[in-house]
């Protein structure tokens, strides 16, 4: 037989070698690299957003790529955290609508603006960028970029250069929402596109916009580095940091660990159950209300139980929103409507959205239902997804709340991308299979995204995402009036009426607004979390 000592010596040699290797590697590991004017940031994305102009990956793509490198004609004001973000002049100094023909808008462009490559921004650059999205015959046309943003500019019919610094846009019909649409169209440098062989994918490697940051390095799925564009036209937006390094860390636990171990200085959306730990270790949490609503979108097709307003109101009264807020570590705002009461579009609804299970039971009893004879609802939900927060836990919490008053919920859990497909297809589609609810969280950043697309009767599938076939002639009229209002104050007043009517009609089941929690080290200074999906890093510096 084999000598036991032979084994013993072998084992000792292998284990000893392993231990020595570990020891030789570990002494230098005790201290993470010190950032000096460099912000290292963990995004929730799994890959770096595309850099060739219009970003992909939703609003986080705009936040950490699009609006870093590029400006639009109209920008969002991201300097305040105590009021909703407003639209402000960007590459256009001013704009006005023609009083005689309100389908025509004149934009006066800012002079003296340079792209990162040194070329000049002017009316030709604006036309070049709109042709890139809308003119299939132009050499710079990009179907991919168009698919990412064209749905945000439904009003734009045509555009033309008046002179080097004036551009005119024509809309299909008079629309006061035009500024809310044009703020998504980012201006890329025509000269750089020429230089990079007229290829947008090549352009993306050395992109050139007029934004406050320049791209310094990009490693797919690993990191993207930005350095300040010192010649930015708005001196108040010249970045204070030397560099921003953004890393895609899709797993919330990995993101949290990266922060706690000092590998990054800032993370987006930490894992909710890790927040007490983050705070106890001396990191700071930053959060603010922003235009987001987590709700149930209701089917109003024939036969849906939600066609009875008493059932809709009862469901809204059955939800313990404070309990859901606690589930989210306290980082949410219980909803009392589609937007928050501090929003100029909130209005004065008479129906109060609150937790009142007794009132809910009474309404259901009136409608002929009870816990013994419940309303049966089929809800389509996802297990994860962008902006969905903790969909399984939150939906199960609601399921319990609703069961307590006499509404029985059956879930059909779908993968996030498949749910998006079902959402686009509408409640009448065969794929919906008679579902009464779809749970997709929404932005309320602009009037079209907040209200029109869900409540105008002509925007059901395939034209739009009025998933539930909401059809209210008076709401249609209000939405069209709001769209036709060119004075912001007048427009906001009409939108307040839209919102009040939606709440009084219990058009959705509103649950919570996200507050976009972010965790960061105390070395991060100067950050203002604006009430917007987009954020500015220009004021940030490292202490």
């Amino acid at each position, binding site marked *: *037989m*084999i*000598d036991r000592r*032979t*084994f013993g010596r*072998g*084992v000792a040699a*292998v284990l000893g070698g392993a231990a020595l290797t*570990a020891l030789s*590697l*570990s002494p*230098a*590991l*005790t201290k*993470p690299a010190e950032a000096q004017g460099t912000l290292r940031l963990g995004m929730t994305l*799994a*890959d770096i957003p*595309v850099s*060739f102009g219009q970003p*992909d990956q*939703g609003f986080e793509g705009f936040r950490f790529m699009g609006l870093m490198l590029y400006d639009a004609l109209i920008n969002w004001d991201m300097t305040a955290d105590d009021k909703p973000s407003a639209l402000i002049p960007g590459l256009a100094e001013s704009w006005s609508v023609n009083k005689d023909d309100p389908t025509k808008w004149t934009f006066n462009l800012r002079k003296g603006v340079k792209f990162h490559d040194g070329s000049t921004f002017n009316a030709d650059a604006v036309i070049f960028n709109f042709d890139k999205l809308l003119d299939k015959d132009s050499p710079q046309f990009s*179907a*991919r970029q168009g*698919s*990412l943003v*064209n*749905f945000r500019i439904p009003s734009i019919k045509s555009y033309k250069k008046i002179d080097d610094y004036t551009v005119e846009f024509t809309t299909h019909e008079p629309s006061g929402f035009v500024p809310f649409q044009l703020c998504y169209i980012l201006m890329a440098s025509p000269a750089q596109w020429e230089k990079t062989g007229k290829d*947008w*994918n090549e352009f*993306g490697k050395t992109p050139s916009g007029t934004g406050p940051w320049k791209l310094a390095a990009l*490693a*797919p*799925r*690993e990191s993207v580095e930005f350095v300040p564009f010192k010649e930015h036209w708005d001196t108040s937006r010249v970045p204070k940091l030397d560099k921003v390094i953004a*890393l*895609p*860390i*899709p*797993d919330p*636990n*990995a993101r949290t*660990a*990266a922060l*706690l*171990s*000092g*590998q990054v200085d800032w993370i987006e959306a930490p894992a909710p159950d890790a927040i007490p730990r983050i705070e106890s270790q001396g990191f700071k949490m930053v959060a603010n209300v922003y235009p987001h609503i987590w709700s149930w979108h209701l089917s109003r097709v024939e036969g849906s139980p939600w066609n009875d307003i008493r059932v809709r109101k009862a469901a809204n009264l059955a939800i313990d929103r404070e309990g859901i807020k606690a589930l989210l570590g306290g980082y949410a705002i219980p909803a009392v409507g589609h937007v928050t009461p501090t929003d100029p579009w909130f209005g004065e609804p008479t129906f109060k959205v609150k937790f009142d299970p007794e009132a809910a039971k009474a309404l259901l009893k009136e409608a002929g239902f009870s816990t013994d004879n419940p309303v049966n609802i089929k809800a389509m939900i996802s297990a994860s997804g962008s902006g969905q927060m903790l969909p399984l836990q939150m939906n199960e919490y609601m399921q319990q709340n609703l069961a307590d008053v006499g509404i029985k919920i059956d879930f059909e859990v779908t*993968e*996030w*991308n*498949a749910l*998006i*497909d079902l959402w*686009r297809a509408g409640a009448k589609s065969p794929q919906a299979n008679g579902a009464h609810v779809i749970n*997709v969280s929404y932005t309320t950043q602009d009037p079209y*995204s907040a209200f029109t697309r869900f409540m105008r009767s002509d925007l059901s*599938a*395939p*034209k739009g*995402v009025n998933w539930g076939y909401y059809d209210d002639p008076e709401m249609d009229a209000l939405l069209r009036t709001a769209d036709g209002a060119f004075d912001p104050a007048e427009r906001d007043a009409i939108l307040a009426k839209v919102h009040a009517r939606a709440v009084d009609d219990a058009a959705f089941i509103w649950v919570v607004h996200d507050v976009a929690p972010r965790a960061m080290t105390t070395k991060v200074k100067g950050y203002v979390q604006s009430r917007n999906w987009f954020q500015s890093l220009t004021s940030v510096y490292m202490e």
Partner: protein
Amino acid sequence: MFAYIARRILYVIPIALGVTVIIFGLVHIAPGDPLNAVVPPDAPKETVQILIEAYGFDKPIPVQYAIWLGRALSGDFGISFATGRPVAEAIAGGVVNTLILAAGAILIGMTLGCLIGAIAGYYQGSWIDKLATGFAIAGVSVPHYWLGLVLVIIFSVEMNVLPAMGMGPGGAKDWAWDQAHMRHLILPVITLSVIPIGIITRSVRATVAEILTMEFVQTLEAKGLKSFRIFLHVCANAAPTVLAVSGLQIGYLLGGSILVETVFSWPGTGFLLNDAIFRRDIPLLQGVILVLAMFFVVMNLLVDILQSLIDPRMARS
């Protein structure tokens, strides 16, 4: 022998073709429009339809398959429609990064697996055997991602001695086998090596225990051979089995681990595959799965050839 090797290589062709059919079929029968993860959720169905036509997804599936296969055979896996970057480039980068991880995990997995397995086999029935078997079962049973998270919590968050994620300074493009980068390897490699350690330990243990009961071992002892020489004979006889098991494990490791690479944000093939799945980036998804499947096919071929070299009876049979 050469005929055997040639036959085995020929077998690879229908297997590879079968793999491409299955990959293409599976990717296309998944629910949902192929582009719905690439265009924004708010984009209406009409916009999605325009892109479906632009990318040729409206063509019959067999036609799409023929076009894809034709290109893939020439090494062109197309362009990722999520990022606009060539798929082949993305896969090449991912494979290299995964190889770095896999190399460490293979080294640890095979060394410790063979060692612990041999000890357990040698001391079969003893407490050492039970300990080793328990360790092997734990290695096979412990979920990867859970172990990864626990290691991160202990060594990165609590003790702050090892990094929690990434490939180190400069990322993949600046990778070097130096201290600054290798420290990033330690936790993912340990996490990744636990399963191969467990599986190889069990196989080696069973094989060694079985060989030790064979008559030729008693003959060798009777001839007065020293125990180390006997051990070499045992190893030679155990090698084909160990090689077959290890080969499969290497195949798994080369494929990358979605969970481990996601937990450690390691930009390998697993991370790439995860991204491709969630964004339903079909060209990337097809390319990655095909390359990973081919790793298995080639690894099996190599193992078969190696086995036949070690034990020529296999080639004859």
